[in-house]
C-alpha cells in the first residue's frame, strides 16, 4: 500500500505501546451491529498504471475544448493559460499547505491573498474584496444575503437576464431563508427595465453584465434608481476578462460586485473548481461573507499578513456568523493572481480587446449565414444568435461536424418558447480565423 508508511512490524509495536491487543480494540465504541467485518463490495487496491488506464479511458470519452473549434460560454470560458501558472500552483508549498491560520508560517499564502484582494478591487472598481468564494453563483447568493443584512430588508429583485443557474442558487437561498424574491422574465433583446420593481422593501437589485445573452449595458441609471429607494445594486460579472474593456461596475454605482474568476488562471474543469469574486464598498466590510486577509506587523515591526475580521465567521460566531462559509478557493485565487500578474495592465486590457475583436468577427461571420440573426447591439466576447431551427438541434448537428458551437438557451431555460431558437456563442483569444470559418461553414450546412 504505497500511501501507507506503517509496516506490519510498526503496527505491532504501536499496539504494544498502546496496550491494545488488536486494532479492533480501538474501535470498541462502535456498536456491534454496525461493525463491518469484511471489506465493502468495491474493487481492491490498484497500482498507478492501472488507475491511470481506467481514468484515461474515461477522459478519452470526452471532447476537450482545446481539440475542436470551441465556442461554449455562458458562465465559463476557454482561455489560454500560461504554463507558468500551473507550474507555480503545483509547488508543494502552495498545493499542500493548510488554511493560513498560523500566519508566521503561511506568509506565502497570505501575501498572495492580499494581492488577489487588491487585484479584484482594482478590476471591479470597488474598495474592498474578499479572499474569494466557491464560485460566481454562490457568491451571487451570498451577495443577496449580505444586502439583506446591510439594509435590514428582505426582498431582492433579480434581472431575468441573470444566468438562470445563478437565479436558481439565489432562489434556493431565499426560499430556505424565507426571503422575498422578484424575478423578471428573461429579455433576449437586452432592453429589460428593472427600476420599476424596486420599492422601499427592496434590499437589492441583481443584474448581470454582460448578461446571459451577452448584452453589455450601462447600469448607472439603475444604480441611481436603487439608491433612491435605499436599495443596493449588485452587479454580477460572469466573465472577468470583460473588465479589461468595459467600465467597471464600481464606476457604474455598484454596491456589491460578484463574479466568476475562472477565466483567469483556471481551466474549464467541467464546472469546478472555480473562483468566486466578491467585492464591495468599504463601509459594508463587516457584513461581508468569506475570508479576508489584512496587513499588519509582526513582533519585530515587519510587515506581514493575517486572516482578519474573523469575528464575522462561523468558527468564532457560530450561529451568529455572517455566513457558514469556511473555505475559499485558495489555489484558484493563486492561479488567478499569477495569471493576472503575468498579464499586467497591458496584457490584460489587450487580452480583452482580442476577445472582443474575435467575437465581433465571429458575429459578422455567423450573421452572414442565411437565416441567422445576431441579437446583440453591444457585447463583449459572447452574443446570441437566432437560428431558423431549434438551438439544441443545431448544436447537436454541429457536434457531428466537429464544432462545439455554444449553449442553446433552451438548455438553461427549458419550457420558455422564446428561447427555443436561441444560442449563446462565445469567442475568446483561443479561436483562430480557421475556427471561425469552420463554424460558419458548418452552421451553413446544418441550416441548409
Amino acid at each position, binding site marked *: 500500500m504505497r500511501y*501507507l508508511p*506503517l509496516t506490519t512490524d510498526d503496527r505491532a509495536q504501536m499496539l504494544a505501546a498502546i496496550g491494545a491487543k488488536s486494532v479492533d480494540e480501538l474501535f470498541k*465504541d462502535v456498536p456491534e451491529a454496525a*461493525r*463491518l467485518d469484511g471489506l465493502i463490495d*468495491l*474493487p481492491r*487496491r490498484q497500482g*498507478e498504471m492501472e488507475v491511470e488506464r481506467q481514468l484515461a479511458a*474515461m477522459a478519452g*470519452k*470526452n*471532447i476537450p*475544448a482545446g481539440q475542436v473549434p470551441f465556442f461554449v460560454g455562458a458562465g*465559463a470560458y476557454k482561455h489560454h493559460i500560461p504554463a*507558468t501558472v*500551473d507550474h*507555480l500552483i503545483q509547488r508543494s*508549498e*502552495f498545493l*499542500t499547505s*493548510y488554511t493560513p491560520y498560523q500566519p508566521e508560517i*503561511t506568509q506565502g499564502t497570505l501575501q498572495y491573498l492580499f*494581492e488577489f484582494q487588491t487585484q479584484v478591487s482594482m478590476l471591479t472598481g470597488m474598495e474592498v474584496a474578499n479572499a474569494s468564494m*466557491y*464560485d460566481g453563483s454562490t457568491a451571487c447568493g451570498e451577495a443577496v444575503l449580505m444586502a439583506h443584512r446591510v439594509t435590514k430588508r428582505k426582498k431582492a429583485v433579480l434581472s431575468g437576464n441573470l444566468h438562470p*443557474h*445563478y437565479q*436558481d442558487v439565489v432562489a434556493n437561498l431565499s426560499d*430556505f*431563508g424565507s426571503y422575498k424574491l422578484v424575478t423578471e422574465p428573461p429579455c433576449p433583446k437586452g432592453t429589460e427595465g428593472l427600476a420599476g420593481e424596486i420599492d422601499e422593501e427592496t434590499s437589492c437589485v441583481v443584474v448581470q453584465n454582460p448578461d446571459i445573452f451577452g448584452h453589455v449595458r*450601462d447600469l448607472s441609471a439603475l444604480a441611481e434608481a436603487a439608491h433612491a429607494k435605499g436599495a443596493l445594486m449588485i452587479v454580477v460579472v460572469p466573465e472577468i476578462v470583460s473588465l479589461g474593456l468595459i467600465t*467597471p461596475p464600481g464606476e457604474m454605482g455598484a454596491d456589491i460586485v460578484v463574479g466568476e474568476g475562472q477565466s483567469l488562471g483556471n*481551466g474549464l474543469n467541467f*464546472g*469546478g*473548481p472555480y473562483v468566486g469574486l466578491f467585492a464591495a464598498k468599504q463601509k459594508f466590510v463587516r457584513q461581508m461573507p468569506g*475570508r479576508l486577509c*489584512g496587513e*499588519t*506587523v*509582526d513582533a519585530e*515591526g*515587519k510587515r506581514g499578513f493575517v486572516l482578519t*475580521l474573523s469575528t464575522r465567521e*462561523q468558527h*468564532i460566531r457560530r450561529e451568529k*456568523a455572517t455566513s*457558514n462559509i469556511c473555505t475559499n478557493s*485558495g489555489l484558484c485565487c*493563486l492561479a488567478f493572481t499569477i495569471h493576472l*500578474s503575468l498579464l499586467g495592465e*497591458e496584457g*490584460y486590457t489587450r487580452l480583452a480587446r482580442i476577445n472582443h*475583436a474575435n467575437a465581433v*468577427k465571429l458575429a459578422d461571420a455567423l450573421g452572414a449565414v442565411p437565416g441567422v440573426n445576431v441579437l446583440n*447591439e*453591444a457585447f463583449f466576447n459572447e452574443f446570441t444568435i437566432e437560428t431558423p431551427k431549434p438551438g439544441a438541434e443545431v448544436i447537436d448537428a454541429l*457536434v457531428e461536424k466537429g464544432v*462545439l458551437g455554444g449553449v442553446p438557451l433552451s438548455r438553461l431555460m427549458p419550457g420558455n418558447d422564446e428561447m427555443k431558437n436561441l444560442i449563446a456563442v462565445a469567442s475568446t483569444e483561443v479561436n483562430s480565423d480557421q475556427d471561425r470559418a469552420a463554424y460558419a461553414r458548418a452552421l451553413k450546412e446544418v441550416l441548409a
Partner: protein
Amino acid sequence: QEEPLIFELDSPGASGVDLDEPEEFAPRLGGVARQGRIGLPGLSEPEVMRHYVRLSQKNYAIDSGLYPLGSCTMKHNPRLNEKMARLPGFGDVHPLQPQQTVQGALELIDTLAHWLKELTGMPAVAMSPKAGAHGELCGMMAIDAALRARGEEGTRKRVLVPESAHGTNPATAAQIGFTVDSIPATEDGHVDVKAFKAKLGPDVAAIMLTNPNTCGLFERDIIEIADAVHEAGGYFYCDGANFNAIAGRVRPGDLGIDAMHINLHKTFSTPHGGGGPGAGPVVFSQALAPFAPLPWIVHEKGAYRAIEHEGESTGQPFGRMTAFHGQMGMFVRALAYMLSHGADGIRQASEDAVLSANYILASLKDVMSAPYEGPCMHEALFDDSFLKGTGVETLDFAKAMIDEGYHPMTMYFPLVVHGAMLIEPTESESKDSLDLFIATLRDLAESAKRGETERFSGAPYLAPRRRLDETLAARKPILRWQHGRNEPASKAAE
C-alpha cells in the same frame, strides 16, 4: 531578502505575456468602454516566477512536514491525482458542452457517486456542494424540504447541536432559519443522551452530530440517538468531517444517519491548497433521497445523462446549490485516490489513522494531560492542565512547535475542553515520524514544566515572521494595497 508585493515590482508597460494587438476593428461595446487605467502592475515572466517561488518558500506544507491538525485532516496528496485531474478530457471540458461530448466526465461523477454510496451505505448522494459547509447547507435544506413535504416546515424549527460541534453546524442551521439548541456533553466527552432525549419534541427538525466527535471519540450511543430522533419525527444530520476515521469499518447508513457531507480533501486526499478548493458531496438516506438538489447523473440506455431541471427525471429536487456539476477537479482526484487504495486500502488507512492517534495519546499522556480515557479515534485530545502554573498558554505551546519544525496542532477546539489541543497525525506518517514528533512534544512539555517560559512566550523565533499583531489588523483593517500607500504598515502605524 524581503519579498515586496507584486504591485511594488511594477515596471509600467512590461508584461509577462506576448499578445498581438488585434487588427483595427469597430468595437461594439455600446458606449461602456472602460476609461483610464486599472492600476495593474507590469512584470516580465521571470519576475513573476521568482516572486511566487519566493512567496511559496514562506509556507509550511504537508509535503515538507507533519500537520498534527485535529478536525482538519492533512494527509499525503498523491501526485497521480494531480496528473489525472489535468487530463484534457477532465480539465478542459466545459460544463455546458453537449452531453454526448462529455460521457466520460458524467461516468466519472457517477462512478465516484457509487463509491461514496457504497462506503457510506446510503442510497443517494448530492455531488454538487462545493465544500464541507456547503454540504451541510445542502443536507439541512434537504431536511427542510422533507419537512415541507410533510407540511411541518412551520412547526419544526429547532435543531439540536452538541456544544462540541464545529462552528459551521450552528451557522448552517441558522442560515436557513432554524433555531439552534445546544446539547451538553457528558464528562467523558460524549453526547449526554439523557439531556438530548429531554430536548426532543414536535418542534425538533433535526440533530446535527459529528461522529467520531470532535473530542476524538466514537459516539457509542449513536444508534440510540438516531432511533430517538427518528421517533420524535426529526432527522439525523451527521457532520462527516471525521469520516476518515471509520471509512471501510463502519457505514453511516448502518447507524441511522439521514444526511452526511463528505469532505473529499479530508477523507480522500484532494489537496488543501492553502484553504481550498474543497468539495462536500452529501449522502442521503431513503427518506431524504427524493429531495436531493440538481443536477444529478442517471445512466440509461447505455448512456449517461445529467438531469439539470426538475421534471426531467423522478424526484422532487429542492433546488440548486451551485451553477454547474460541483468540484469536478476534486472528484477526479478523490476517485483516483479511492481506486488506488481500494476497499482494502481505505479500511487500512482508517485503521492506521486511529492507531497513530492512539499511539500519540499513549505516548504523551504522562507528560501532557488527556481529558478523556482512550482509546480515541483518529484524533488525540489534550487539555492545558499540564501547563497549569507554568505561565505557558496553549497558544504559546503551539507556537513553540513552529521553532521545532512543526505546524501547531488545532488549539482551543473543541470548546468543551479548557485549552484544548487536538492532534490528528493521519495515516500518512511513518512510525519514525511519529516518534520524532512525540519526542519533540515531550521535550516541549518538560521544558514548559521546567519554567523555560521564554522559549514559549516569544515563539516562533525561527519562522519567516515573528508573532503577528492580529488586533491591529482587525482594528484598522488594511485589506488591499493602494498606490501611494505602499510603505509597510510598520511605518504607517508609527
